[in-house]
Protein backbone atom coordinates (compact mmCIF):
# COMPACT_ATOMS: atom_id res chain seq x y z
CA UNK A 1 0.00 0.00 0.00
CA UNK A 2 2.86 2.35 0.90
CA UNK A 3 4.39 1.73 -2.49
CA UNK A 4 1.15 2.52 -4.30
CA UNK A 5 0.60 5.68 -2.28
CA UNK A 6 4.16 6.78 -2.93
CA UNK A 7 3.76 6.04 -6.63
CA UNK A 8 0.55 8.09 -6.77
CA UNK A 9 2.39 10.93 -5.05
CA UNK A 10 5.17 10.57 -7.61
CA UNK A 11 2.60 10.62 -10.40
CA UNK A 12 1.28 13.96 -9.15
CA UNK A 13 4.81 15.33 -9.34
CA UNK A 14 5.51 13.81 -12.75
CA UNK A 15 2.26 15.19 -14.19
CA UNK A 16 3.04 18.79 -13.20
CA UNK A 17 3.12 20.77 -16.47
CA UNK A 18 6.78 21.78 -16.13
CA UNK A 19 7.89 18.23 -15.34
CA UNK A 20 5.84 16.90 -18.25
CA UNK A 21 7.62 19.39 -20.49
CA UNK A 22 11.05 18.39 -19.18
CA UNK A 23 10.17 14.72 -19.60
CA UNK A 24 9.11 15.40 -23.20
CA UNK A 25 12.31 17.36 -23.93
CA UNK A 26 14.35 14.55 -22.41
CA UNK A 27 12.72 11.71 -24.35
CA UNK A 28 12.69 13.68 -27.60
CA UNK A 29 16.35 14.63 -27.28
CA UNK A 30 17.11 11.06 -26.16
CA UNK A 31 15.39 9.65 -29.25
CA UNK A 32 17.37 12.05 -31.44
CA UNK A 33 20.72 11.14 -29.89
CA UNK A 34 19.79 7.49 -30.15
CA UNK A 35 19.06 7.95 -33.85
CA UNK A 36 22.09 10.08 -34.70
CA UNK A 37 25.16 7.90 -35.01
CA UNK A 38 28.07 9.55 -33.30
CA UNK A 39 26.35 10.84 -30.21
CA UNK A 40 25.05 8.23 -27.82
CA UNK A 41 23.04 8.61 -24.60
CA UNK A 42 26.15 9.58 -22.68
CA UNK A 43 27.00 12.42 -25.05
CA UNK A 44 23.35 13.45 -25.11
CA UNK A 45 23.11 13.61 -21.33
CA UNK A 46 26.50 15.35 -21.05
CA UNK A 47 25.37 18.07 -23.48
CA UNK A 48 22.22 18.92 -21.52
CA UNK A 49 23.67 18.34 -18.06
CA UNK A 50 24.98 21.90 -17.56
CA UNK A 51 21.52 23.26 -18.41
CA UNK A 52 20.03 21.33 -15.49
CA UNK A 53 22.27 23.15 -13.02
CA UNK A 54 20.11 26.24 -13.50
CA UNK A 55 16.89 24.36 -12.75
CA UNK A 56 15.28 25.08 -9.41
CA UNK A 57 14.27 21.47 -8.78
CA UNK A 58 16.45 18.36 -8.71
CA UNK A 59 13.38 16.30 -9.61
CA UNK A 60 12.90 18.18 -12.87
CA UNK A 61 16.59 17.81 -13.69
CA UNK A 62 16.66 14.06 -13.12
CA UNK A 63 13.36 13.58 -14.98
CA UNK A 64 14.79 15.25 -18.08
CA UNK A 65 18.16 13.50 -17.96
CA UNK A 66 16.64 10.09 -17.30
CA UNK A 67 14.35 10.73 -20.27
CA UNK A 68 17.43 11.14 -22.47
CA UNK A 69 18.84 7.88 -21.07
CA UNK A 70 15.90 5.61 -21.84
CA UNK A 71 14.82 7.64 -24.89
CA UNK A 72 18.13 6.86 -26.58
CA UNK A 73 17.40 3.14 -26.22
CA UNK A 74 14.23 3.61 -28.30
CA UNK A 75 15.90 5.82 -30.90
CA UNK A 76 18.87 3.56 -31.58
CA UNK A 77 16.69 0.86 -33.14
CA UNK A 78 15.41 3.23 -35.87
CA UNK A 79 18.79 3.67 -37.54
CA UNK A 80 19.64 0.02 -37.00
CA UNK A 81 16.54 -1.05 -38.90
CA UNK A 82 16.47 1.62 -41.60
CA UNK A 83 20.17 2.17 -42.19
CA UNK A 84 22.01 -0.86 -40.83
CA UNK A 85 23.92 1.62 -38.65
CA UNK A 86 23.44 1.30 -34.88
CA UNK A 87 22.46 4.64 -33.39
CA UNK A 88 24.10 3.58 -30.18
CA UNK A 89 25.98 0.51 -28.97
CA UNK A 90 22.95 -1.29 -27.53
CA UNK A 91 21.34 -1.37 -31.00
CA UNK A 92 24.18 -3.19 -32.76
CA UNK A 93 22.40 -6.52 -32.64
CA UNK A 94 19.15 -5.06 -33.99
CA UNK A 95 20.98 -4.34 -37.26
CA UNK A 96 21.38 -8.05 -37.98
CA UNK A 97 17.73 -8.93 -38.57
CA UNK A 98 16.15 -5.48 -38.46
CA UNK A 99 17.85 -4.21 -41.58
CA UNK A 100 17.10 -7.45 -43.42
CA UNK A 101 13.43 -7.01 -42.60
CA UNK A 102 13.61 -3.44 -43.95
CA UNK A 103 15.20 -4.64 -47.18
CA UNK A 104 12.28 -7.02 -47.64
CA UNK A 105 9.82 -4.14 -47.30
CA UNK A 106 9.03 -5.00 -43.68
CA UNK A 107 10.62 -1.99 -42.00
CA UNK A 108 7.24 -1.02 -40.58
CA UNK A 109 6.62 -4.21 -38.58
CA UNK A 110 10.24 -4.17 -37.40
CA UNK A 111 9.89 -0.60 -36.12
CA UNK A 112 6.52 -1.29 -34.49
CA UNK A 113 7.68 -4.46 -32.77
CA UNK A 114 10.86 -2.70 -31.59
CA UNK A 115 8.78 0.17 -30.17
CA UNK A 116 6.16 -2.07 -28.53
CA UNK A 117 8.83 -4.38 -27.11
CA UNK A 118 10.77 -1.39 -25.81
CA UNK A 119 7.62 -0.01 -24.19
CA UNK A 120 6.75 -3.28 -22.49
CA UNK A 121 10.30 -3.92 -21.28
CA UNK A 122 10.83 -0.33 -20.20
CA UNK A 123 7.60 -0.40 -18.18
CA UNK A 124 8.47 -3.71 -16.50
CA UNK A 125 11.93 -2.35 -15.78
CA UNK A 126 10.50 0.68 -13.99
CA UNK A 127 8.22 -1.67 -12.04
CA UNK A 128 11.28 -3.68 -10.98
CA UNK A 129 13.04 -0.47 -9.91
CA UNK A 130 9.99 0.53 -7.90
CA UNK A 131 9.74 -2.85 -6.16
CA UNK A 132 13.42 -3.63 -5.54
CA UNK A 133 14.83 -0.24 -4.66
CA UNK A 134 13.03 0.58 -1.39
CA UNK A 135 13.76 -2.72 0.44
CA UNK A 136 17.33 -2.69 -0.86
CA UNK A 137 17.76 0.89 0.34
CA UNK A 138 16.54 -0.08 3.82
CA UNK A 139 19.09 -2.89 3.92
CA UNK A 140 21.88 -0.62 2.67
CA UNK A 141 21.28 1.94 5.44
CA UNK A 142 23.09 -0.47 7.73
CA UNK A 143 26.39 -0.43 5.84
CA UNK A 144 29.41 1.44 7.14
CA UNK A 145 32.50 2.87 5.41
CA UNK A 146 34.20 -0.56 5.30
CA UNK A 147 31.29 -2.14 3.42
CA UNK A 148 30.91 0.96 1.25
CA UNK A 149 34.57 0.73 0.23
CA UNK A 150 34.27 -3.00 -0.48
CA UNK A 151 31.16 -2.44 -2.57
CA UNK A 152 32.66 0.35 -4.70
CA UNK A 153 35.91 -1.53 -5.15
CA UNK A 154 34.03 -4.62 -6.22
CA UNK A 155 31.93 -2.58 -8.66
CA UNK A 156 35.13 -1.27 -10.25
CA UNK A 157 36.73 -4.71 -10.30
CA UNK A 158 33.67 -6.22 -11.96
CA UNK A 159 34.08 -3.55 -14.65
CA UNK A 160 37.49 -4.92 -15.48
CA UNK A 161 35.88 -8.29 -16.24
CA UNK A 162 32.92 -7.05 -18.21
CA UNK A 163 34.61 -4.24 -20.13
CA UNK A 164 35.09 -4.48 -23.87
CA UNK A 165 38.82 -4.05 -23.39
CA UNK A 166 41.42 -6.39 -21.79
CA UNK A 167 41.48 -6.67 -18.01
CA UNK A 168 44.90 -4.93 -17.76
CA UNK A 169 43.87 -2.01 -19.93
CA UNK A 170 40.62 -1.62 -18.00
CA UNK A 171 42.45 -1.73 -14.67
CA UNK A 172 44.83 0.95 -15.88
CA UNK A 173 41.87 3.14 -16.88
CA UNK A 174 40.28 2.61 -13.46
CA UNK A 175 43.52 3.54 -11.70
CA UNK A 176 43.94 6.58 -13.93
CA UNK A 177 40.40 7.68 -13.14
CA UNK A 178 40.92 7.24 -9.41
CA UNK A 179 44.12 9.29 -9.66
CA UNK A 180 42.36 12.07 -11.55
CA UNK A 181 39.81 12.11 -8.72
CA UNK A 182 42.60 12.93 -6.24
CA UNK A 183 43.26 16.28 -7.94
CA UNK A 184 42.19 19.14 -5.73
CA UNK A 185 41.75 19.74 -2.03
CA UNK A 186 42.02 16.71 0.25
CA UNK A 187 38.66 16.52 2.08
CA UNK A 188 40.25 15.40 5.37
CA UNK A 189 43.20 17.76 5.75
CA UNK A 190 42.60 20.56 3.22
CA UNK A 191 45.97 19.80 1.60
CA UNK A 192 46.12 20.75 -2.10
CA UNK A 193 46.97 17.71 -4.23
CA UNK A 194 48.24 17.59 -7.82
CA UNK A 195 47.02 21.07 -8.75
CA UNK A 196 50.50 21.99 -10.10
CA UNK A 197 50.09 25.49 -8.73
CA UNK A 198 46.86 26.25 -10.62
CA UNK A 199 44.08 27.33 -8.25
CA UNK A 200 41.45 26.48 -10.85
CA UNK A 201 42.03 22.81 -9.99
CA UNK A 202 41.33 23.30 -6.28
CA UNK A 203 37.93 21.65 -6.69
CA UNK A 204 39.28 18.97 -8.98
CA UNK A 205 39.37 18.45 -12.70
CA UNK A 206 35.85 19.08 -14.01
CA UNK A 207 33.93 15.88 -14.51
CA UNK A 208 31.48 17.37 -17.02
CA UNK A 209 34.15 18.70 -19.46
CA UNK A 210 35.99 15.40 -19.18
CA UNK A 211 32.84 13.39 -19.90
CA UNK A 212 31.91 15.59 -22.87
CA UNK A 213 35.44 15.39 -24.22
CA UNK A 214 35.98 11.68 -23.69
CA UNK A 215 32.64 10.58 -25.07
CA UNK A 216 31.16 13.40 -27.16
CA UNK A 217 34.22 14.92 -28.82
CA UNK A 218 36.08 11.64 -29.24
CA UNK A 219 33.03 10.20 -31.00
CA UNK A 220 32.99 13.16 -33.40
CA UNK A 221 36.70 12.68 -34.06
CA UNK A 222 36.06 8.98 -34.79
CA UNK A 223 33.35 9.95 -37.27
CA UNK A 224 35.67 12.43 -38.95
CA UNK A 225 37.84 9.53 -40.09
CA UNK A 226 35.36 8.81 -42.80
CA UNK A 227 32.43 11.06 -43.47
CA UNK A 228 29.74 9.54 -45.61
CA UNK A 229 26.19 10.39 -46.47
CA UNK A 230 23.64 7.71 -45.87
CA UNK A 231 20.61 6.57 -47.77
CA UNK A 232 17.85 5.47 -45.46
CA UNK A 233 14.92 3.20 -46.18
CA UNK A 234 11.85 5.34 -45.49
CA UNK A 235 8.70 3.46 -44.52
CA UNK A 236 5.22 4.90 -45.07
CA UNK A 237 2.78 5.32 -42.21
CA UNK A 238 0.52 2.60 -43.62
CA UNK A 239 3.36 0.10 -43.75
CA UNK A 240 3.85 0.53 -40.00
CA UNK A 241 0.87 -1.72 -39.29
CA UNK A 242 2.22 -5.16 -38.35
CA UNK A 243 0.53 -8.46 -39.09
CA UNK A 244 -1.04 -10.46 -36.29
CA UNK A 245 1.62 -13.14 -36.91
CA UNK A 246 4.38 -10.58 -36.24
CA UNK A 247 2.88 -9.66 -32.88
CA UNK A 248 2.30 -13.31 -31.98
CA UNK A 249 5.86 -14.35 -32.91
CA UNK A 250 7.52 -11.42 -31.21
CA UNK A 251 5.61 -11.49 -27.90
CA UNK A 252 7.50 -14.42 -26.30
CA UNK A 253 10.80 -12.94 -27.49
CA UNK A 254 9.89 -9.66 -25.83
CA UNK A 255 9.15 -11.51 -22.61
CA UNK A 256 12.43 -13.39 -22.65
CA UNK A 257 14.42 -10.29 -23.63
CA UNK A 258 12.83 -8.39 -20.76
CA UNK A 259 13.94 -11.01 -18.24
CA UNK A 260 17.49 -11.01 -19.65
CA UNK A 261 17.65 -7.22 -19.48
CA UNK A 262 16.30 -7.10 -15.92
CA UNK A 263 18.96 -9.54 -14.74
CA UNK A 264 21.88 -7.85 -16.50
CA UNK A 265 20.81 -4.31 -15.63
CA UNK A 266 22.46 -4.68 -12.24
CA UNK A 267 25.86 -5.54 -13.74
CA UNK A 268 28.23 -2.55 -13.85
CA UNK A 269 29.76 -1.68 -17.16
CA UNK A 270 27.95 -2.30 -20.38
CA UNK A 271 24.87 -4.12 -19.18
CA UNK A 272 22.67 -2.76 -21.95
CA UNK A 273 25.05 -4.07 -24.62
CA UNK A 274 25.70 -7.46 -23.03
CA UNK A 275 21.99 -8.05 -22.52
CA UNK A 276 21.21 -7.56 -26.23
CA UNK A 277 23.83 -10.09 -27.29
CA UNK A 278 22.60 -12.58 -24.70
CA UNK A 279 19.01 -12.11 -25.80
CA UNK A 280 19.87 -12.58 -29.49
CA UNK A 281 21.90 -15.69 -28.70
CA UNK A 282 19.01 -17.04 -26.62
CA UNK A 283 16.44 -16.46 -29.37
CA UNK A 284 18.64 -18.14 -31.93
CA UNK A 285 19.35 -21.04 -29.58
CA UNK A 286 15.69 -21.87 -28.92
CA UNK A 287 14.34 -21.12 -32.40
CA UNK A 288 12.98 -24.00 -34.52
CA UNK A 289 14.87 -22.60 -37.52
CA UNK A 290 17.99 -20.88 -36.17
CA UNK A 291 19.46 -20.73 -39.69
CA UNK A 292 16.85 -18.07 -40.50
CA UNK A 293 18.37 -15.63 -38.03
CA UNK A 294 20.23 -12.99 -39.95
CA UNK A 295 17.72 -13.05 -42.80
CA UNK A 296 15.00 -11.00 -41.14
CA UNK A 297 13.53 -12.86 -38.17
CA UNK A 298 11.31 -10.65 -36.06
CA UNK A 299 12.46 -12.38 -32.87
CA UNK A 300 15.95 -11.09 -33.67
CA UNK A 301 14.60 -7.55 -33.30
CA UNK A 302 12.04 -8.02 -30.54
CA UNK A 303 14.26 -9.83 -28.02
CA UNK A 304 17.33 -7.54 -28.09
CA UNK A 305 15.26 -4.36 -28.14
CA UNK A 306 13.31 -5.54 -25.11
CA UNK A 307 16.56 -6.55 -23.40
CA UNK A 308 18.23 -3.18 -23.83
CA UNK A 309 15.20 -1.26 -22.59
CA UNK A 310 14.74 -3.59 -19.64
CA UNK A 311 18.17 -2.58 -18.36
CA UNK A 312 17.21 1.07 -17.99
CA UNK A 313 15.25 0.67 -14.75
CA UNK A 314 17.48 -1.89 -13.07
CA UNK A 315 20.67 -0.02 -13.99
CA UNK A 316 19.31 2.91 -11.97
CA UNK A 317 19.06 0.75 -8.84
CA UNK A 318 22.80 0.86 -7.98
CA UNK A 319 22.78 4.65 -8.45
CA UNK A 320 19.64 5.48 -6.51
CA UNK A 321 19.99 2.90 -3.76
CA UNK A 322 23.74 2.57 -3.32
CA UNK A 323 24.95 5.84 -4.78
CA UNK A 324 27.15 3.89 -7.20
CA UNK A 325 26.65 4.58 -10.89
CA UNK A 326 26.92 1.28 -12.72
CA UNK A 327 27.30 2.85 -16.16
CA UNK A 328 28.69 6.22 -17.33
CA UNK A 329 25.24 7.58 -18.21
CA UNK A 330 24.07 7.14 -14.61
CA UNK A 331 27.31 8.78 -13.45
CA UNK A 332 26.09 11.93 -15.16
CA UNK A 333 22.69 11.57 -13.49
CA UNK A 334 24.56 11.36 -10.20
CA UNK A 335 26.38 14.61 -10.99
CA UNK A 336 23.05 16.34 -11.59
CA UNK A 337 21.76 15.16 -8.22
CA UNK A 338 24.94 16.19 -6.40
CA UNK A 339 24.83 19.69 -7.89
CA UNK A 340 21.34 20.08 -6.43
CA UNK A 341 22.61 18.98 -3.02
CA UNK A 342 21.12 15.49 -3.18
CA UNK A 343 23.34 12.53 -2.33
CA UNK A 344 22.17 9.39 -4.08
CA UNK A 345 22.39 6.38 -1.81
CA UNK A 346 20.38 4.47 0.79
CA UNK A 347 19.01 7.72 2.29
CA UNK A 348 17.63 9.04 -0.99
CA UNK A 349 14.21 7.39 -0.79
CA UNK A 350 13.85 8.40 2.86
CA UNK A 351 15.17 11.97 2.63
CA UNK A 352 14.03 12.90 -0.87
CA UNK A 353 10.95 10.79 -1.71
CA UNK A 354 9.82 13.41 -4.25
CA UNK A 355 12.94 12.86 -6.32
CA UNK A 356 12.73 9.05 -6.24
CA UNK A 357 8.99 8.61 -6.78
CA UNK A 358 8.79 11.57 -9.16
CA UNK A 359 11.46 9.90 -11.29
CA UNK A 360 9.75 6.50 -11.20
CA UNK A 361 6.38 7.96 -12.20
CA UNK A 362 7.96 10.08 -14.94
CA UNK A 363 9.54 6.97 -16.43
CA UNK A 364 6.09 5.41 -16.84
CA UNK A 365 4.90 8.63 -18.48
CA UNK A 366 8.07 8.88 -20.57
CA UNK A 367 7.66 5.36 -21.93
CA UNK A 368 4.15 6.27 -23.13
CA UNK A 369 5.49 9.45 -24.77
CA UNK A 370 8.19 7.43 -26.53
CA UNK A 371 5.71 4.92 -27.89
CA UNK A 372 3.63 7.78 -29.31
CA UNK A 373 6.70 9.67 -30.63
CA UNK A 374 8.68 6.93 -32.26
CA UNK A 375 6.25 5.54 -34.76
CA UNK A 376 4.46 8.47 -36.42
CA UNK A 377 7.60 10.62 -36.37
CA UNK A 378 9.90 8.06 -37.93
CA UNK A 379 9.81 9.95 -41.24
CA UNK A 380 11.02 13.15 -39.56
CA UNK A 381 13.79 11.34 -37.74
CA UNK A 382 14.96 9.75 -40.96
CA UNK A 383 15.17 13.19 -42.61
CA UNK A 384 17.37 14.44 -39.79
CA UNK A 385 19.80 11.69 -40.67
CA UNK A 386 20.19 13.25 -44.09
CA UNK A 387 21.73 16.44 -42.60
CA UNK A 388 25.32 16.56 -43.72
CA UNK A 389 27.83 15.70 -41.05
CA UNK A 390 29.72 18.85 -42.03
CA UNK A 391 26.86 20.81 -40.40
CA UNK A 392 26.01 18.35 -37.65
CA UNK A 393 29.52 18.05 -36.19
CA UNK A 394 30.14 21.79 -35.59
CA UNK A 395 26.59 22.11 -34.21
CA UNK A 396 27.26 19.40 -31.63
CA UNK A 397 30.64 20.92 -30.75
CA UNK A 398 29.18 24.42 -30.31
CA UNK A 399 26.43 23.05 -28.05
CA UNK A 400 29.15 21.25 -26.07
CA UNK A 401 31.14 24.47 -25.69
CA UNK A 402 28.08 26.40 -24.49
CA UNK A 403 27.12 23.66 -22.09
CA UNK A 404 30.58 23.26 -20.61
CA UNK A 405 31.14 27.01 -20.24
CA UNK A 406 27.79 27.29 -18.50
CA UNK A 407 28.98 25.07 -15.62
CA UNK A 408 31.81 27.22 -14.21
CA UNK A 409 32.11 30.12 -16.70
CA UNK A 410 35.69 29.00 -17.25
CA UNK A 411 37.38 28.76 -20.64
CA UNK A 412 39.81 26.24 -19.09
CA UNK A 413 36.95 23.74 -19.17
CA UNK A 414 36.79 24.13 -22.96
CA UNK A 415 40.48 23.27 -23.04
CA UNK A 416 39.78 20.20 -20.88
CA UNK A 417 37.11 19.18 -23.41
CA UNK A 418 39.57 19.54 -26.28
CA UNK A 419 42.37 17.59 -24.59
CA UNK A 420 40.01 14.91 -23.24
CA UNK A 421 38.52 14.56 -26.71
CA UNK A 422 41.86 13.94 -28.40
CA UNK A 423 43.07 11.67 -25.59
CA UNK A 424 39.77 9.77 -25.68
CA UNK A 425 40.06 9.34 -29.45
CA UNK A 426 43.60 7.94 -29.17
CA UNK A 427 42.70 5.63 -26.29
CA UNK A 428 39.75 4.24 -28.24
CA UNK A 429 41.91 3.66 -31.32
CA UNK A 430 44.20 1.46 -29.24
CA UNK A 431 41.30 -0.37 -27.62
CA UNK A 432 41.22 1.24 -24.18
CA UNK A 433 37.67 1.38 -22.82
CA UNK A 434 36.71 4.84 -21.54
CA UNK A 435 33.70 3.87 -19.40
CA UNK A 436 35.82 2.57 -16.47
CA UNK A 437 37.86 5.77 -16.57
CA UNK A 438 34.88 8.06 -16.15
CA UNK A 439 33.22 5.82 -13.54
CA UNK A 440 36.41 5.78 -11.51
CA UNK A 441 36.61 9.60 -11.68
CA UNK A 442 33.07 9.80 -10.30
CA UNK A 443 33.59 7.22 -7.55
CA UNK A 444 37.18 8.17 -6.66
CA UNK A 445 36.42 10.73 -3.96
CA UNK A 446 33.91 8.55 -2.18
CA UNK A 447 36.10 5.47 -2.47
CA UNK A 448 39.02 7.28 -0.86
CA UNK A 449 36.84 8.79 1.86
CA UNK A 450 35.33 5.40 2.71
CA UNK A 451 38.77 3.78 2.74
CA UNK A 452 40.32 6.36 5.04
CA UNK A 453 37.35 6.44 7.40
CA UNK A 454 37.27 2.65 7.62
CA UNK A 455 41.01 2.44 8.37
CA UNK A 456 40.69 5.13 11.02
CA UNK A 457 37.79 3.26 12.68
CA UNK A 458 39.63 -0.07 12.54
CA UNK A 459 42.94 1.51 13.62
CA UNK A 460 44.66 0.25 10.51
CA UNK A 461 43.20 -3.29 10.39
CA UNK A 462 42.25 -4.41 6.86
CA UNK A 463 39.72 -6.96 8.17
CA UNK A 464 37.14 -4.19 8.32
CA UNK A 465 36.72 -4.55 4.54
CA UNK A 466 35.71 -8.23 4.62
CA UNK A 467 34.55 -9.13 8.11
CA UNK A 468 30.90 -8.06 7.98
CA UNK A 469 28.17 -10.17 6.40
CA UNK A 470 27.46 -7.39 3.87
CA UNK A 471 31.05 -7.46 2.67
CA UNK A 472 30.84 -11.22 2.36
CA UNK A 473 27.65 -10.82 0.30
CA UNK A 474 29.44 -8.40 -2.01
CA UNK A 475 32.24 -10.89 -2.56
CA UNK A 476 29.66 -13.59 -3.34
CA UNK A 477 27.94 -11.19 -5.76
CA UNK A 478 31.28 -10.61 -7.49
CA UNK A 479 31.68 -14.35 -7.99
CA UNK A 480 28.15 -14.63 -9.44
CA UNK A 481 28.76 -11.70 -11.79
CA UNK A 482 32.04 -13.16 -13.00
CA UNK A 483 30.21 -16.47 -13.61
CA UNK A 484 27.51 -14.65 -15.62
CA UNK A 485 30.20 -12.88 -17.62
CA UNK A 486 31.93 -16.17 -18.32
CA UNK A 487 28.64 -17.58 -19.62
CA UNK A 488 28.21 -14.45 -21.74
CA UNK A 489 31.69 -14.86 -23.18
CA UNK A 490 31.03 -18.54 -23.85
CA UNK A 491 27.79 -17.74 -25.70
CA UNK A 492 29.44 -14.90 -27.55
CA UNK A 493 32.30 -17.15 -28.56
CA UNK A 494 29.80 -19.61 -30.03
CA UNK A 495 27.83 -16.92 -31.88
CA UNK A 496 30.66 -15.64 -34.06
CA UNK A 497 31.27 -18.81 -36.12
CA UNK A 498 27.51 -19.23 -36.72
CA UNK A 499 27.10 -15.58 -37.74
CA UNK A 500 29.74 -16.03 -40.42
CA UNK A 501 27.63 -18.88 -41.85
CA UNK A 502 24.46 -16.79 -42.00
Amino acid sequence: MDTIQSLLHGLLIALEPLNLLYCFIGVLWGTLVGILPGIGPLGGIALLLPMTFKMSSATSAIIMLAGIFYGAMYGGSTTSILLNIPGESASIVTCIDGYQMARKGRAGPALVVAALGSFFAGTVSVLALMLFAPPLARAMLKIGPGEEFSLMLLALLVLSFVSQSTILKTLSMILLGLMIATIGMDPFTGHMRFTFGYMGFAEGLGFVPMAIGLFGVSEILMNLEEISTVEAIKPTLRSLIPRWKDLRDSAPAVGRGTLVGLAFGFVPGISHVISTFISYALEKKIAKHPEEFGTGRIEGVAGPEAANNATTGTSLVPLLVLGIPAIPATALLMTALLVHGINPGPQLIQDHPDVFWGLIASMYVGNIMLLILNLPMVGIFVNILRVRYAYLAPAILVISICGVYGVNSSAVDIGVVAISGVVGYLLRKFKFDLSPLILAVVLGDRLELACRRALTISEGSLWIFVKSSFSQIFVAALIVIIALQTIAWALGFRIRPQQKDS
Partner: protein
Amino acid sequence: MREISQRTGELVAAGALFTIGLVWALGSLEMPRGEFSVPGPGFFPMFLSGGLCASALLIALNALRSRVTARVRVGNASIWSTGIALLVVAVLFEPLGFIPAIALFVAFFLRLLSGFRWIPCILTALAAACVVYLFFGVLLGIPLPPVRWL
Protein backbone atom coordinates in the same frame (compact mmCIF):
# COMPACT_ATOMS: atom_id res chain seq x y z
CA MET B 1 45.60 8.86 -42.44
CA ARG B 2 48.72 7.68 -40.72
CA GLU B 3 49.09 3.99 -39.87
CA ILE B 4 50.69 2.91 -36.64
CA SER B 5 51.08 -0.64 -35.46
CA GLN B 6 48.85 -1.69 -32.58
CA ARG B 7 51.99 -2.63 -30.68
CA THR B 8 53.56 0.81 -31.06
CA GLY B 9 50.35 2.48 -29.95
CA GLU B 10 50.10 0.30 -26.87
CA LEU B 11 53.74 0.93 -26.00
CA VAL B 12 53.23 4.68 -26.29
CA ALA B 13 50.06 4.47 -24.17
CA ALA B 14 51.87 2.37 -21.58
CA GLY B 15 54.71 4.90 -21.54
CA ALA B 16 52.30 7.77 -21.00
CA LEU B 17 50.50 5.92 -18.21
CA PHE B 18 53.79 5.03 -16.54
CA THR B 19 54.88 8.66 -16.68
CA ILE B 20 51.61 9.82 -15.11
CA GLY B 21 52.01 7.16 -12.42
CA LEU B 22 55.54 8.31 -11.73
CA VAL B 23 54.51 11.97 -11.46
CA TRP B 24 51.77 10.97 -9.02
CA ALA B 25 54.18 8.86 -7.00
CA LEU B 26 56.67 11.73 -6.74
CA GLY B 27 53.85 14.10 -5.77
CA SER B 28 52.66 11.67 -3.08
CA LEU B 29 56.17 11.53 -1.62
CA GLU B 30 56.00 15.27 -1.01
CA MET B 31 52.80 14.95 0.99
CA PRO B 32 52.28 13.52 4.45
CA ARG B 33 51.23 9.91 3.91
CA GLY B 34 50.37 9.13 7.51
CA GLU B 35 50.02 5.47 8.40
CA PHE B 36 47.40 2.74 8.05
CA SER B 37 45.56 3.80 11.17
CA VAL B 38 45.50 7.50 10.19
CA PRO B 39 45.98 7.76 6.41
CA GLY B 40 47.27 11.11 5.17
CA PRO B 41 46.62 12.93 1.87
CA GLY B 42 49.46 11.08 0.13
CA PHE B 43 48.34 7.60 1.24
CA PHE B 44 45.78 6.75 -1.40
CA PRO B 45 47.57 8.39 -4.38
CA MET B 46 50.73 6.47 -3.49
CA PHE B 47 49.00 3.10 -3.83
CA LEU B 48 47.20 4.19 -6.99
CA SER B 49 50.39 5.42 -8.65
CA GLY B 50 52.15 2.17 -7.79
CA GLY B 51 49.28 0.21 -9.31
CA LEU B 52 49.25 2.35 -12.46
CA CYS B 53 52.99 2.03 -12.99
CA ALA B 54 52.76 -1.73 -12.54
CA SER B 55 49.85 -2.11 -14.96
CA ALA B 56 51.60 0.16 -17.49
CA LEU B 57 54.67 -2.06 -17.36
CA LEU B 58 52.53 -5.15 -17.84
CA ILE B 59 50.74 -3.57 -20.82
CA ALA B 60 54.13 -2.76 -22.34
CA LEU B 61 55.33 -6.30 -21.71
CA ASN B 62 52.20 -7.75 -23.32
CA ALA B 63 52.65 -5.47 -26.31
CA LEU B 64 56.29 -6.50 -26.76
CA ARG B 65 55.43 -10.20 -26.52
CA SER B 66 52.39 -9.89 -28.74
CA ARG B 67 52.48 -11.37 -32.23
CA VAL B 68 49.66 -9.14 -33.42
CA THR B 69 50.75 -7.24 -36.49
CA ALA B 70 47.58 -5.21 -36.93
CA ARG B 71 48.01 -1.64 -37.98
CA VAL B 72 45.74 1.12 -36.79
CA ARG B 73 44.87 4.17 -38.83
CA VAL B 74 45.17 7.18 -36.60
CA GLY B 75 44.14 10.72 -37.31
CA ASN B 76 43.79 12.82 -40.40
CA ALA B 77 43.90 16.55 -41.13
CA SER B 78 40.25 17.02 -40.07
CA ILE B 79 40.74 15.27 -36.76
CA TRP B 80 43.89 17.09 -35.66
CA SER B 81 42.49 20.40 -36.96
CA THR B 82 39.36 19.91 -34.87
CA GLY B 83 41.38 19.31 -31.72
CA ILE B 84 43.55 22.36 -32.38
CA ALA B 85 40.52 24.49 -33.26
CA LEU B 86 38.89 23.60 -29.94
CA LEU B 87 42.04 24.62 -28.07
CA VAL B 88 42.15 27.90 -30.00
CA VAL B 89 38.51 28.53 -29.05
CA ALA B 90 39.41 27.92 -25.40
CA VAL B 91 42.18 30.55 -25.63
CA LEU B 92 40.19 33.15 -27.59
CA PHE B 93 36.75 32.55 -26.01
CA GLU B 94 36.91 35.20 -23.29
CA PRO B 95 39.25 37.78 -24.91
CA LEU B 96 37.30 37.85 -28.21
CA GLY B 97 33.82 37.19 -26.89
CA PHE B 98 31.35 34.40 -27.64
CA ILE B 99 30.04 35.46 -31.05
CA PRO B 100 33.39 36.17 -32.80
CA ALA B 101 35.08 33.09 -31.29
CA ILE B 102 32.26 30.72 -32.21
CA ALA B 103 31.83 32.31 -35.63
CA LEU B 104 35.50 31.74 -36.39
CA PHE B 105 35.26 28.15 -35.14
CA VAL B 106 32.18 27.32 -37.20
CA ALA B 107 33.59 29.06 -40.29
CA PHE B 108 36.76 27.06 -39.99
CA PHE B 109 34.81 23.84 -39.61
CA LEU B 110 32.53 24.55 -42.57
CA ARG B 111 35.54 25.36 -44.72
CA LEU B 112 37.33 22.23 -43.53
CA LEU B 113 34.50 19.77 -44.02
CA SER B 114 32.31 21.24 -46.74
CA GLY B 115 34.85 23.12 -48.85
CA PHE B 116 32.69 26.24 -49.23
CA ARG B 117 34.47 29.50 -50.00
CA TRP B 118 35.52 31.65 -47.05
CA ILE B 119 32.92 34.43 -47.46
CA PRO B 120 29.85 32.13 -47.38
CA CYS B 121 31.46 30.20 -44.49
CA ILE B 122 32.02 33.35 -42.45
CA LEU B 123 28.55 34.76 -43.14
CA THR B 124 26.87 31.43 -42.28
CA ALA B 125 29.01 31.09 -39.19
CA LEU B 126 28.19 34.61 -37.97
CA ALA B 127 24.50 33.97 -38.37
CA ALA B 128 24.78 30.62 -36.58
CA ALA B 129 26.77 32.17 -33.72
CA CYS B 130 24.13 34.89 -33.26
CA VAL B 131 21.32 32.32 -33.20
CA VAL B 132 23.19 30.17 -30.69
CA TYR B 133 23.88 33.24 -28.51
CA LEU B 134 20.19 34.13 -28.54
CA PHE B 135 19.22 30.58 -27.56
CA PHE B 136 21.82 29.80 -24.93
CA GLY B 137 22.77 33.24 -23.71
CA VAL B 138 19.44 35.02 -23.77
CA LEU B 139 16.77 32.29 -23.62
CA LEU B 140 18.52 29.82 -21.32
CA GLY B 141 20.41 32.49 -19.40
CA ILE B 142 23.86 30.93 -19.67
CA PRO B 143 26.45 33.67 -18.98
CA LEU B 144 28.45 33.73 -22.22
CA PRO B 145 31.39 36.14 -22.62
CA PRO B 146 30.39 39.42 -24.30
CA VAL B 147 32.33 41.25 -27.04
CA ARG B 148 34.31 43.79 -25.00
CA TRP B 149 36.82 44.97 -27.60
CA LEU B 150 34.29 46.60 -30.02
